[in-house]
């Protein structure tokens, strides 16, 4: 159960090796005892994350999970909730996908769509049903500012995040009064593994900063959070910029 001060007893991380997701887990673990379920594709990184959390005192369970295998989601979510209530679930899996390649190779484009959107809808619905049944819980969905206005340089990724964002926002509204809280997170450029090959964009941030913002937003029952917070205003200005102008911005 979530404590009155917003400390959960259990966290499910979907995308068990995600840097942002693990930063959220770390912050909760620093504040108290925690049961962690890491769902992810088996890899050294996933194993290392599990070992590190266990050493830090968490009770860790690892479940193999490939987001693109939609038919496995039902069983995965059942297993994730079998060990007891899940107080916070973080939907953190996602791929950036190289825009230029994806424009040429349909298979890559469809993998990005499948992972970031279709799989997120599938797991999002299943987790929200399980939380509705247990009568409480928080679902954190990692969207992106890239979804707010598509850019030439990565509109494929942007379009999947736009879809995910709309889905998660609507899901949150549908769950009002059910005891289940959905938080949509819109980070800007987060310096980390996913972006290490890119030049940091203005207002770039870190996984730790995203985690801090997520914890605060959950505590105050917010439904949307931008990281850094100033992006909210930047994006609301960019959204209304005429297209020819927006196209010419170095984004």
């Amino acid at each position, binding site marked *: *159960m*979530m*404590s*009155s*001060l*917003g*400390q959960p*007893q259990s966290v499910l991380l979907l995308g068990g090796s995600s840097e942002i997701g693990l930063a959220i887990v770390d912050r909760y673990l620093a*504040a*108290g*005892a925690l049961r962690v379920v890491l769902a992810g594709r088996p890899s050294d990184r996933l194993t290392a994350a599990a070992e590190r959390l266990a050493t830090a005192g968490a009770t860790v369970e690892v479940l193999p999970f490939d987001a693109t295998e939609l038919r496995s989601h039902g069983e995965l979510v059942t297993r994730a909730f079998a060990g007891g*209530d899940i107080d916070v679930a973080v939907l953190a899996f996602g791929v950036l996908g190289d825009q230029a390649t994806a424009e040429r190779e349909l298979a890559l484009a469809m993998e990005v769509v499948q992972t970031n959107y279709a799989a997120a809808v599938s797991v999002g619905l299943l987790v929200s049903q399980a939380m*509705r*049944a*247990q*009568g*409480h819980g928080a679902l954190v969905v990692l969207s992106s500012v890239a979804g707010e206005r598509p850019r030439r340089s990565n509109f494929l990724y942007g379009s999947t995040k736009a879809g995910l964002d709309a889905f998660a926002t609507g899901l949150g509204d549908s769950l009002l*009064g*059910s*005891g289940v809280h959905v938080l949509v997170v819109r980070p800007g450029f987060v310096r980390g593994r996913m972006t290490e090959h890119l030049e940091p964009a203005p207002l770039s941030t870190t996984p730790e900063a995203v985690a801090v913002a997520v914890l605060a937003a959950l*505590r*105050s*029952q917010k439904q949307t959070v931008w990281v850094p917070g100033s992006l909210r205003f930047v994006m609301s200005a960019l959204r209304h910029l005429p297209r020819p102008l927006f196209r010419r911005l170095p984004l």
Partner: protein
Amino acid sequence: MSDRRLLAGWGRTSPTSARLLPVGTAEDVSLAVQAAGPRGLVARGLGRSYGDAAQDAGGVVLDMTTLCRVHSFDHETGVVEADAGLSLHALMGMSLHEGWFVPVTPGTRFVTLGGAVAADIHGKNHHVDGSFGQHVLELSLVTADGGERRLSPADDLFWATVGGMGLTGVVTRVRLQLRAVETSRVTVDTERAADLDDVMDRMVRGDADYTYSVAWVDLLARGRATGRGVLTRGRHSRRDELPASADPLSFAPRASLRVPPIVPGGLLRRSTVAAFNEVWFRKAPRAARGQVQGLAGFFHPLDGVAGWNNVYGPRGFVQYQLVVPEKGVDAVRTAVTLLSAARTPSFLTVLKRFGPGNRGPLSFPMAGWTLALDLPTGVPGLAAVLDRLDELVLAAGGRVYLAKDARLPREHLPAMYPRLPEWRAVRDRVDPHHVFTSDLSRRLSL
């Protein structure tokens, strides 16, 4: 699922959704218990516990307030038998005119008999009269098998139910010994004390002379005034202390102000609280003796302000109530110093000296000192301060009050309640599958 409702405690911090089922008879209770699903069931009275005790996410919550008949009331002996959903407010309204008052009252009249038993509530008279369970002669309990049992203080299940937070079954009836009074007034002495040591010293020396004793402590006063406070102590007034024209047993408490459902952001900031505390302290006479007050004003000042828990704004507030044994008294001093230093704006900080505890393995009171704080959840660093208080309380051999808790880490429970195994043995005998489940029991693995 559509008939589900969000339920929270009085602190409004941790709402979860459950089916709320009103019950009118013991048979209703029995049927509901037998039909309980995998998420279990728990009883709920008037929801005055601050934390997550009277809710069960995804399960069934029985609304006991519709089970509220009085079955018998003996004007000679003051023994009353009533349904568990009856409120102390309604009970007093009936019995005071006949010269009978409740044996123990918390800071609000709006609690049910069932809630009073389940939390084994204490009042300002704990040092002389003990807690609620000690005045219960018999009770009826619907257990997990759906059967209704009659229990007396000779049964271990009786004592597992007293303070058992609704986890042994549903109390359906309570047979209670009331207290004889000549009037519906209290004769009160008030004293200001310069600092915490002064407050405690006066309590140690003088409490035995009073039926009721409590001290309000100013947590925002610092330096030499750290822990300054106001003691109010009293006893039931005698007939001859009232003017001849007065109706000695009149009881018509006013319901006055109402706080709007949600105060944006909350009214309570540190500056407001500090100003309030200053006025409260100055307003109290340096020393006043023999003032005659109404019962409601003395025992239930907050009941005059309907919905007062809304002043804390949408994020609610936490109560933290600790008790430490006499030898651990330094923990109270350290706690007050810590809270003063952290500038936590506690608006209602109350210190009291308890008498001995009772046979209930989960009953909260023990001989020593209890300190209760009200804190808005938004205070930065609050979680760390309360974690620190847990450590202090543990080291001093004390505990926190489950009826007010929604944050205690579960690993602290066995040390704070060392008789937990004894309680579990009784509970597991009558409810092996843990049909009775609440958010509190889930959080603490009770």
